[in-house]
């Protein structure tokens, strides 16, 4: 078996013939997995589409009850974490061990920041009695017989952001492992596939949020109108 670098040979699994084959398999594997995730979230997006087109007014009122400033800030946080992730992948390509660890840790910090802010937002919803399924649910500005529809908005809100948060937690776990192994010197310029593939996952979770934010927070909002 002809191989080019020590690192890749050590990491080569026995079912593969060459390092390149292994890298191809890992990368393709992650892309296919992300496609399954698209289908998974897609079901929720479909339910959202159906109900938003059925109850546009109620959904607009419910959306404006979300804190768009916090949501926007969180979006920026997540985008920055994707940026630091890219820097980590670049560092891995260049074989710079300490840089990899640094950028992965920054990504992790930003990720936890996102999750912390999310927890704060959810708590706010709890205070405002916007938790669906609870007896004290009430959305202001919507008549009593449409409270059920308002609950639907918040159900979708919590389901979608909850699913997203779960994926971020898993992502945080992945990034932590990568940071640890990077620290141990496992990744070099010749063998950095796990960092690459972990980066793909992180970016995907980011992209899901980029869709969630306008769909959930920005219904019927206009720049000229300062609605809180």
């Amino acid at each position, binding site marked *: 078996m002809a191989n080019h670098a020590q690192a890749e040979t050590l990491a080569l699994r026995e079912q593969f013939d060459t390092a390149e084959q292994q890298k191809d398999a890992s990368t393709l*594997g992650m892309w296919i*997995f992300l496609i399954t995730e698209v289908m998974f979230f897609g*079901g929720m997006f479909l339910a959202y589409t159906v109900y938003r087109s059925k109850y546009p007014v109620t959904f607009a009122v419910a959306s404006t009850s979300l804190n768009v400033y916090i949501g926007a800030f969180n979006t920026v946080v997540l985008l920055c974490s994707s940026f630091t992730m890219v820097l980590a992948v670049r560092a891995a390509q260049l074989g710079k061990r300490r840089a990899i660890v640094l950028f992965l840790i920054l990504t992790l910090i930003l990720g936890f920041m996102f999750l912390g802010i999310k927890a704060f937002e959810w708590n706010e919803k709890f205070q405002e009695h916007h938790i669906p399924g609870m007896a004290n649910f009430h959305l202001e500005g919507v008549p009593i017989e449409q409270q059920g529809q308002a609950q639907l908005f918040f*159900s979708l809100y919590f389901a979608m952001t909850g699913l997203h948060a779960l994926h971020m937690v898993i992502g945080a776990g992945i990034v932590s492992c990568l940071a640890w192994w990077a620290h141990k010197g496992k990744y070099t310029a010749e063998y950095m596939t796990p960092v690459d593939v972990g980066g793909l996952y992180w970016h995907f979770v980011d992209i899901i949020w980029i869709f969630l934010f306008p769909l959930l927070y920005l219904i019927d909002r206009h720049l000229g109108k300062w609605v809180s």
Partner: protein
Amino acid sequence: MNASYGIKSWLLTKDHKRIGLLYLATITLFFFLGGAFATLIRIELLTPQGDLVSSETYNKLFTMHGVVMIFFFLIPSIPATLGNFFLPMMIGARDLAFPKLNLLSWYLLVIGGLFALFAMLAGGVDTGWTFYTPYSTSYSNTWVIATAIGIFVAGFSSILTGLNFIITVHTMRAPGMTWFRMPLFVWAHYATSLIQVLGTPVLAVTIVLVFCERYFHIGIFDPALGGDPVLFQHLFWFYSHPAVYIMILPAMGVISELVSTFARKPVFGYGFVAFSSLAIAVLGFLVWGHHLFVSTQSVYAGLIFSFLSYFVAIPSAIKVFNWTATLYKGSISYATPMLYAFGFIGLFTIGGLTGLFVASLGIDVHVTDTYFVIAHFHYIMVGGAIMAYLGGMHYWWPKMTGRMYPEGWAKLSALVIFLGFNLTFFPQFILGYLGMPRRYHVYPPEFQVLHVLSTAGASVLAVGYVIPMVYFVWSLRYGAIAPANPWGASGLEWKTASPPPKHNFEETPIVTHGAYDYSHVIGEEVEVG
């Protein structure tokens, strides 16, 4: 196979062949569990009254029969046993791309199965395997969530297997193994894997929504809160229709191998059969609404779905014609696997043709939710998929175990299964058109004669399934030792020992010809016919 011994070497194996055998044991258990439920159902239906079990119990029986057979037997069956064992070998690889993920897939099936088993033992679930809302979310007081979790976990088993197969086919073919030199079994599994990977996540999210609705009453399927119960049906069938192609495509892949080997000719129209697998996978995602023709779905949507349903029938027809044409001027052996292949082609033809009935809007309004539909899908799933599965098991048994099964008993049980099957399910077409609804515990007396025929058939069918269990197990000890290639088959898996060594091939094969070239196996060409 004999590389190492002990429970731990099996439970922690990364060898795709051992994992295939672990799956074999698991799904066989589930098959007999599902079969036990079916037996009770058929016995109850001997009489119009509900005299064997209560209605609550009967409703649980048909629900659990469906859940077990579909999610824990049919969907894994061929891909996870024969696919796992042979797909890598057929393309000249040492293993799948991700062996540890493969083992995880098996554990996920087992864990999912344990959830489902728990639900059954704790009291059962009575929503029907289709668990339509709002009955399943707001009215049933049985173990819906436990069962749903079991299906959810098993779904991930399916997704990971599909993912593994796709990557393997893309990146691990041996040198010279181009796409068009691959056996049709591989093409069929590749197409199946596409469906598993794209469709199953939608089922997963549907289950999450059912869970939220049932547990938190969020209202997504509850009309009183503004929800839409029919939305559930769209989400459910978006997966569950492609799921039936997950169940049949691998079977078709097996049949391609059997027909070719036992006619000793390449499959007629190889390219067409390969592409028809892909066509079925793609088109299969576009027809889910044909389960909703009477559901208050728009008539215009019904029109589109009916039209597309006829489209998806054509690639299957192409396969049947091509297999039949493979027999022309062939050299046909009547070994047991071939008998199963004949049975498949005949019964799948009938089942598929009755699909044309239900695809027709005017007819479906009458026969949907009746025994006609039950007969239609059992012809395909049992007369089709299970026969192909058994045919494949007999075909590859010598390769997997190094032993031959007893041919005489095998032929006999194939015949018993064929006869028993037809007697069980053909009367159900008539029952359905006469108006007998499905999922009925008690029924008007005029339907009894047909039910009695059906139950009689079921008892014959049951015997037919038990006999192979016995002789397969017997053969492990007492069967004749199998050579590397007892059938004179082509295909890389026959070029290695029976059973294969741990790394499948002593050296990575270099492939120089197409999949069904018997001249390398047999000897000189001879004019036939």
